[in-house]
């Protein structure tokens, strides 16, 4: 009899603890716990679970580039710079490479900017190659595994394919020298050449301070149904339409330009952030690449993201259950966008808003300075920690070689 009682109590306790959809009475809004396919890992603390060794590269790979163009600190590829700074002062950093689990190479490949502020990727393969040559000759750890326990931050459009045009990027493929390493990148599309298996997808950098200053009181009623600001046709590069965004953005415009529920235009209002906080749905369609900072902005401002990008892989997809938080629309379904959005049941919409209100969700999308617990830096470290322990067969036998150092386009082989 006693056994039954204890069993019952234990069952009740387990039911309370393991309840996934538990509603917490937050200070401001009831939120729900977020647990993705890797479990309830958004709030994990990586300290103590891994050790990272940061290579000391000459400043021409990082500091000097930044000095030449400080705009690199504010554009959407700034994650590579802030990741370096975070790791230098983080408790996971170790100065003893023998005990390190992961090795980080601080090379800012996305900092060669045009006058307009867009990064040119033409020298990036050479820069990366030169950095790898340096670390392989000065330290033995690269040759030990050919980079399998090294990770690199490549936040550019198509990550390690180092080109902004998708066709060219696919042609080039991932840089041969990075075939074994783990890549931390913003680009994610399933079955794409430029997404390596095992890569960690991070959100693009969005300035946290700027978004904080534009917060409006939470009781301001949300009165816009669908909100979007941005280009529909890229007139400079694709005047006829059909290439840019695979025609999806143009389809949104053509179908919904006179629909009063859709507040969409190409203007640049000063109240962009405030307007997002007054909207129920925010469109996040693909552009030239499938990812965009709009996702980050939508999550921060509590607007349900409507993601229109086929086969996209979203940031931290194993920690964040994006299917439950955002709405995914296939590109072929764009003409029916209004039908789809209005047919979502009310309780589903409210649940999505509760999930978005979870502060750990918002924190995971940001790169705050200085770093805070649960932010994107920590999620990257969590992702790296989840990949530990390393498989035994990454350690090559002496003399064994996997990578072909002369592969790739001829232009890449020139020294940087």
């Amino acid at each position, binding site marked *: 009899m006693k056994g039954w009682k204890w069993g019952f109590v234990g069952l009740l306790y387990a039911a309370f603890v393991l309840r996934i959809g538990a509603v917490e009475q937050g200070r401001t*809004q009831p939120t729900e716990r977020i647990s993705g396919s890797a479990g309830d890992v958004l709030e994990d603390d990586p300290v103590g679970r891994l050790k990272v060794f940061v290579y000391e590269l000459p400043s021409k790979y990082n500091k000097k580039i930044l000095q030449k163009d400080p705009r690199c600190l504010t554009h959407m590829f700034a994650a590579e710079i802030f990741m370096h700074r975070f790791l230098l002062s983080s408790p996971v950093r170790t100065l003893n490479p023998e005990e390190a689990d992961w090795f980080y190479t601080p090379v800012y490949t996305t900092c060669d900017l045009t006058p307009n502020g867009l990064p040119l990727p033409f020298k990036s393969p050479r820069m990366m190659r030169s950095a790898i040559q340096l670390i392989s000759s000065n330290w033995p750890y690269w040759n030990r595994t050919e980079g399998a326990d090294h990770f690199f931050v490549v936040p550019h459009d198509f990550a390690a394919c180092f080109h902004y045009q998708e066709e060219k990027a696919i042609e080039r493929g991932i840089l041969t020298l990075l075939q074994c390493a783990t890549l931390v990148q913003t680009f994610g599309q399933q079955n794409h*050449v430029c997404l390596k298996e095992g890569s960690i997808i991070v959100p693009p950098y969005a300035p946290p301070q700027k978004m904080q200053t534009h917060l409006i009181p939470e009781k301001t009623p949300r009165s816009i149904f669908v909100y979007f600001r941005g280009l529909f046709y890229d007139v400079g590069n694709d005047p006829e339409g059909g290439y840019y965004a695979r025609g*999806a953005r143009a389809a949104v415009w053509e179908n919904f330009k006179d629909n009063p529920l859709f507040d969409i235009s190409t203007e640049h209002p000063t109240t962009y952030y405030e307007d997002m906080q007054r909207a129920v749905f925010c469109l996040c369609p693909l552009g030239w690449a499938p990812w965009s900072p709009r996702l980050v902005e939508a999550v921060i401002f509590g607007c349900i993201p409507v993601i229109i990008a086929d*086969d996209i892989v979203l940031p931290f997809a194993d920690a964040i259950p994006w299917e439950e938080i955002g709405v995914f629309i296939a590109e072929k379904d764009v003409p029916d966008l209004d039908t789809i959005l*209005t047919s979502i049941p009310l309780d589903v919409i409210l649940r999505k808003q509760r999930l978005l209100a979870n502060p750990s969700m918002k924190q995971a999308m940001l790169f705050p300075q200085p770093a805070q617990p649960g932010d994107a830096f920590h999620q990257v470290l969590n992702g790296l920690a989840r990949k530990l322990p390393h498989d035994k067969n990454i350690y090559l036998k002496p003399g064994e070689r996997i990578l072909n150092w002369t592969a790739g386009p001829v232009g890449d082989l020139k020294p940087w």
Partner: protein
Amino acid sequence: MKFSAWQQSYANKRSSSFRASSGPLDSSSDGSIKSASAIFWLILHGLCCLISLVLGFRFSRLVFFLLFSSPAANIYTAPFRSASELAQTLTLYSTPASTNIELPAANRTAGITASPNSRVVVGRHGIRIRPWPHPNPVEVMQAHRIIERVQKEQRLQFGVKHPRTVIVVTPTYVRTFQALHLTGVMHSLMNVPYDLVWIVVEAGGATNETASIIAKSGLRTFHVGFRQRMPNLWAERHRLEARMRLHALRIVREKKLDGIVMFADDSNMHSMELFDEIQNVKWVGALSVGILAHSSQTGEESSASVIPKEDEENRAVPVQGPACNSSNQLVGWHTFNSLPYVGKSATYIGDREIVLPRKLEWAGFVLNSQLLWKDAEDRPEWVKDLDTLDHADEDVETPLSLLKDVSLVEPLGSCGRQIMLWWLRVEARADSKFPPGWIIDPPLEITVPSKRTPWPDAPPELPSNEKAVTGVQEHTLKHSSKTQTSRSKRSSRSKRKHDPKTVELQLPGRHSEN
């Protein structure tokens, strides 16, 4: 050298157009260019460009695609319209057989897939537009329901947790502008999301006129008559209104209404945030009231002469309300500066001069109704009982007379910084007449037209035995001050405030007297 030139063009825009990317730059992988074939492709490309120029779309890509695509690829042309006119709408779905379509070096068109088994294809896609790209009314209604539900959820979470009933006290009386003012207040109150009780105290006894206006509200109302008629002088009107409000407070006490008492004068303007803010009051709260002191004279000369030059900053709307120090504690009151208007203010209702408010208006105060109850146990001791005011000899000017200690009043609206209601007094002359209930019944008769018409070259008078159509064709004109004297002869007709002229509209011309 070609590469650097290529890079230069990229430096200007993000990427140059795809035309520039084609051509001999993408040539065969071994890097060497056979000159004959290169020239041939160049000429062909140039020819295609010229044809495109003439036709108006990118013809070359279409030709190459059709010529060189493998038969396994599916091409969709119907049912999609495209942004451009002709068959540019080609949606290519890759099949595993056609993973990489081999095309000549000159143009690469759609067909490069990312990898086998991927749905997503690089290249030109059609722009899908549905056959009738306009909003569906059923979906629009559903979207509005979604928005309402989301807003309700927001209110539940961030709004007032336990909303109390709002008890609104409005003194009124029958006059020309009553319908205008009372309807305004009524519509504001109908939009309040909380429970509401409206106590309308009418000077001169409860009339059907007022009752018919407030019946349209659908709110819970108490329509009470007050025996005395509204006097014509502003000073006495203020005093009577104060007594009417006290009468309403007595009703609150008798019926033991529970909630927050606010004073909504019928000509004031209230914002919705006001009703959210007053929910925060504990016992007695004070709000900032914007004073719209208005004179019916044309603005510039009168106000310029009245406001002294050194008061430039007072040209903004003056505000009555609580004054706080930097730690948000009540230290005093902002009142209306009536010194500039001494001697020039209105004395009787309908006067052309500026109507001035009192030092502190009743509208700027809210009370917890439990203060007024006879034997409330938790009433603070710094509040007097309502009965003591009944026997007071001097007039009660503000609800502050109900308090022994004025410093315990709570300033609302972030310490008076937010103005959520405006005080305004616009009235017609006491002798102005208006149709009762604003219904013209019986229909107006045609009367003799006036001596002097505003139109000097009007055609001669027409027969006057047709009846004017009621209301619809009635035409009211603004009179100029010149014709006022001629109008005063017409005393048999009902006049509006500005004595409009009734003119038949059936005839294009105008009457003129002989």
